[in-house]
């Protein structure tokens, strides 16, 4: 079994490591459209026709170059969600997202891929359901930096009723 000894020295340490990642050709184009024009662009595979987010140079399935750019709708459908009840550290800032909050995966109209973001709804499991319709809410143009944080959240379209089945 595991020994328990009287003295166990352990040495604490904090390591801060700065990084700077190049977004590359495809994502730079997609993120500049978001920042400058408030539009979401995806790439379409010439072979399997999947409309992929984030924009990327090669279709993983077909291994051919993605060369068609497609503007996505600003609205989409929720395919999975959760309500977070524990403080979840935002790795990009080191600060926690304050619980409870809802976030989920939304498939923007015209996309094959989904986009994960906050859901601007009451964190109540009775008020969120798979299939619910949402629209993108972006930061004002002057505040956008060319990153997914340019999206503030998804907001539910008004007048929706929860369907008669459970989530």
């Amino acid at each position, binding site marked *: *079994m*595991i*020994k*328990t*000894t009287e003295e*166990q020295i*352990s040495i604490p*340490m904090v*390591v801060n490591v700065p*990084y700077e*990642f190049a*977004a*590359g050709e495809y*994502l730079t184009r997609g993120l500049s459209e978001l920042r400058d024009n408030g539009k979401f662009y995806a790439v379409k595979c010439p072979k399997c026709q999947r409309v*992929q*987010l*984030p924009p*990327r140079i090669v279709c*993983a*399935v077909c291994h051919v170059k993605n060369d068609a750019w497609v503007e996505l709708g600003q609205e989409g459908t929720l*395919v*999975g*969600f*959760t*309500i*977070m*009840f*524990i403080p*979840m*550290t*935002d*790795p*990009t*800032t080191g600060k926690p*997202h304050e619980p409870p909050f809802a*976030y*989920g*995966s939304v498939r923007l109209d015209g996309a094959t*891929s*989904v*986009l*994960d*973001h*906050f859901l601007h709804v009451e964190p109540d*499991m009775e008020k969120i*359901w*798979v*299939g619910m319709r949402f629209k993108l809410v972006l930061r004002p143009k002057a505040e956008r930096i060319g990153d*997914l*944080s340019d999206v503030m959240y998804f907001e539910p379209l008004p007048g929706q009723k929860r369907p008669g*089945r*459970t*989530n």
Partner: protein
Amino acid sequence: MKRNVAIIGGGQTYHAARRHDVDQAEMVNEAVRRALDDAGLTIDEIDLVLLGNMEFFEGMHMTDCWLVHGTGAYGRPGLKITTGGTVGATIVCAGAHHVASGLFDRVLCIGFEKQEEGDTGAILSGVASPLWGRSMAGAAVGYFAMLATSYMAAWGAKEEHSAMVAVKARQNARKNKYAHLKIDLKMEDVMNSKMLAYPIKLHDMCPASNGACAVILADEKTAKKRCKKPVWIRAMDTAHNEQFELDWRDVKTKRPIFSKVSSSRIYKKLGVTKPSEYFDVFEVYEPATWSELLWYEDLGICGPGEGFKLIEKGMTNIDGPIPVNPSGGVLSTNCIGASAMLRVWEAALQIRGDAEEHQVPKDVRRALTTAYGGTNWTVITALSKSLDE
């Protein structure tokens, strides 16, 4: 395979939330010594050492170099392998390839994790792409919660079904002397446990464990000469997912995702048509209760949307017709770098009849194990008692 490969021995540590009594090398050495003793080999008889863990969980790169005294790799060929949650099974897979190739006869495979030494949540965020969505990628629990809401919406499963998986895991773990969480858990304990991320509650998730596992692989000649109860590796398969895509969170997906692709390929290699009848026991990689239900379906143990009915009927209990995770699984012990190897080793113990209190009460001749990693890929391993089956 070019040459048959057998597991001729193995060992594991007692897994726990706190192991400040040992450093990494000392902890790894506990499993290595048990494996060598079990196989009846000395370290000089080992001709290749493969080591793996989750990259940077312990804040240290080059663990293969720093732990060389503990692993026994001094002066002999070796490799470090890091493939996320799958790593333990990847090491066995790579080891089996090395033996099957004919270049090595006795390979020591080691997986370990000492989670207490770092910040698992913080390091896991490095699994997410820094360019796309890392802000939302704080912990594994959110991912599994979305999988769960998708599953519930698609098939009508309830929170009680995942609680049944939690109860089964922890009750099985109580029979496994090496397991970390050995709680006398009841349904109401799970249902009343703290909500982490709806619908995932505290008892729906795996613990953060410290521990190591080691297994020794050998060619057929060595295995038959040196081992009374060799367990044969009959087939392996691995498949990657497309990382940016929805994968397990869209349970109705028609896309060929990792788990289905890999299991259908391994069944084809072995000629399996009814996996629930062909295999006597399963050890699957379930960091959350809901992922076990998905494994039932993706492995073809039942049809799509029927996983929750399987647990409801008790089919996968330790004494049920299709025992799954008699060891208590990842839900009871998750020393990540060792977890996927523990699936293989626990399945081998079942075939040997050496699982002691958590031995399933039937003749075990064939077993299937899975691995799962944050990059959404798997390594599936099929084991058997004899080369005739």
